């Protein structure tokens, strides 16, 4: 129990702490690859500090949903963060980490964000929520199929057991993880509202999806929303990283092992952030109606993984 408590505190704390850095890293790489200098790497932290000092203002049309949504959102995402081990692998009996529950937590967070977007009754918020939910309806089967393929290959639905399985084996033993990795990368891009699906930096009516839902949030509440977006990105990155490159993840809770684990995860996450940044710079935003072809690629990889596993 004590070990699990330590795990939960460390894991959630570490993921929350490095999330703004990862957001900054993606922005920085993107800027560099486009020939700009870009914001400082720690800009994410400065933004949060600035927002936390500001006053909260609500539109008179808003209800309690608007006020509660940021807390609910970050709560769900921190709960999801507890399920994805990055500091060390907790022992099997104490750790909750079911992949189905994990997906439901992510969807619930998204649901409350969309509700908050609708709550103020502004045109942009409603438009963003409607777009987000339409995209969700298409990407959700793909996400679930990817998770199912992952569970099928690794013979478990528990995330920490999945990590334990790949940690003890090499990629050569699970060749289909390459295909699942591609699916998870697409899911990561879609779920974190990145180009080619959405542009997180724009405030244009035509392209805005995720940002539109946050327009009515202000001050510390907006900071919470931004932080939860960062946590979501880091958690999804953690799944991809620890499935494909599990090296460095500590199997037991000793201080040096945890330090190595944190350091190696930080480095691997920075590398993945660089890949995301370059990928984003290479792609153009896809038209909304052409997005399914992007998702279908992930679905194809997941389906093929299952058949491949049946055969091999």
């Amino acid at each position: 129990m004590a070990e699990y408590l330590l795990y939960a505190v460390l894991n959630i704390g570490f993921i929350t702490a490095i999330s703004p850095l990862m957001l900054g890293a993606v922005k920085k790489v993107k800027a560099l690859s486009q020939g700009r200098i870009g914001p400082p790497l720690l800009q994410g932290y400065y933004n949060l500090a600035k927002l936390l000092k500001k006053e909260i203002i609500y539109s008179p049309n808003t209800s309690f949903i608007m006020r509660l949504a940021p807390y609910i959102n970050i709560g769900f995402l921190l709960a999801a963060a507890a399920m994805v081990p990055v500091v060390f692998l907790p022992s099997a009996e104490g750790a909750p980490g079911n992949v189905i529950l994990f997906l439901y937590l992510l969807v619930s967070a998204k649901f409350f964000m969309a509700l908050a977007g609708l709550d103020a009754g502004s045109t942009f918020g409603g438009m963003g929520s409607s777009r987000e939910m339409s995209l969700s309806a298409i990407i959700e089967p793909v996400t679930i199929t990817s998770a199912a393929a992952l569970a099928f290959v690794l013979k478990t639905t528990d995330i920490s057991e999945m990590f334990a399985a790949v940690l003890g084996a090499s990629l050569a033993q699970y060749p289909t993880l390459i295909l699942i990795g591609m699916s998870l990368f697409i899911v990561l891009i879609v779920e974190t509202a990145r180009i080619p699906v959405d542009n997180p930096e724009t405030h244009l009516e035509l392209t805005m999806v995720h940002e539109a839902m946050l327009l009515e949030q202000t001050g510390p509440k907006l900071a919470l929303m931004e932080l939860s977006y960062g946590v979501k990105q880091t958690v999804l990155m953690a799944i991809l990283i620890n499935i494909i490159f599990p090296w460095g993840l500590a199997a037991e809770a000793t201080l040096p092992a945890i330090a190595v684990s944190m350091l190696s995860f930080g480095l691997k996450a920075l590398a993945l952030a660089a890949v995301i940044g370059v990928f984003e710079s290479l792609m153009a935003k896809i038209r909304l109606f052409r997005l399914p072809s992007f998702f279908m690629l992930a679905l194809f990889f997941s389906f093929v993984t299952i058949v491949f596993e049946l055969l091999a």
Partner: protein
Amino acid sequence: MNELIIGDDFIKILLVLVLGSAALIITQRSLVSLFSIYAAQSAILAAVALALFTREGTASLLFMAVLTVASKVIIIPFFLRRLLAVMPIKRDLEFHYLTPIGSIILSTGLFFVVYQAFSALSPALEVSRLFILGAVIGVSLALMGMMVIMSRRKVITKIIGYLSMENGVLLFSMFIAEMPFIIEVLIIVDLLMIIVLSAVLAFGIDSSVEAFHKRLNQLGLDFED
């Protein structure tokens, strides 16, 4: 024994990459990317042939690997890139019958059907599961290439479909059919002829087949004049 298992795993990784490249060929619209993916797919096939050679020791597999690298990784993509310099288009955006989404869903179905067919056949074939897997992926790749030929309108992407179909046949022959090396050489010569012909006919390569006929006729009339 351990080495053998590692060899099998390596081949499986390569087969996974072949499938990935096949999916990208179906969905990709940019011609430069299509050519690069085709070259990468051929390089992976050469690696499969090499891996099989280290396992089986058949000399023809080694020749096949060398031939594949020389023709499909270097020469054919080189010709195709030169074609691209002549053509006014850089992207293929027109589709017959099937859009990329439809194609990718259909190819998932194709993969299942081929898998089912080979599952039924596998006791009679008396080869290991790895070889069945290679054969299933080979046949699926050939069918996916056929689908590219059917669903794309532009001649240049149809050629890519044909080339990728041939890659599927090559993969199948490596795992099950053991095609004589001379046949493989003849096929490569065929492929080179196709590419050379397409380079000669490059004045209309950016058009669909129907428009190509018109342009060809116009050319004929010009000559008569």
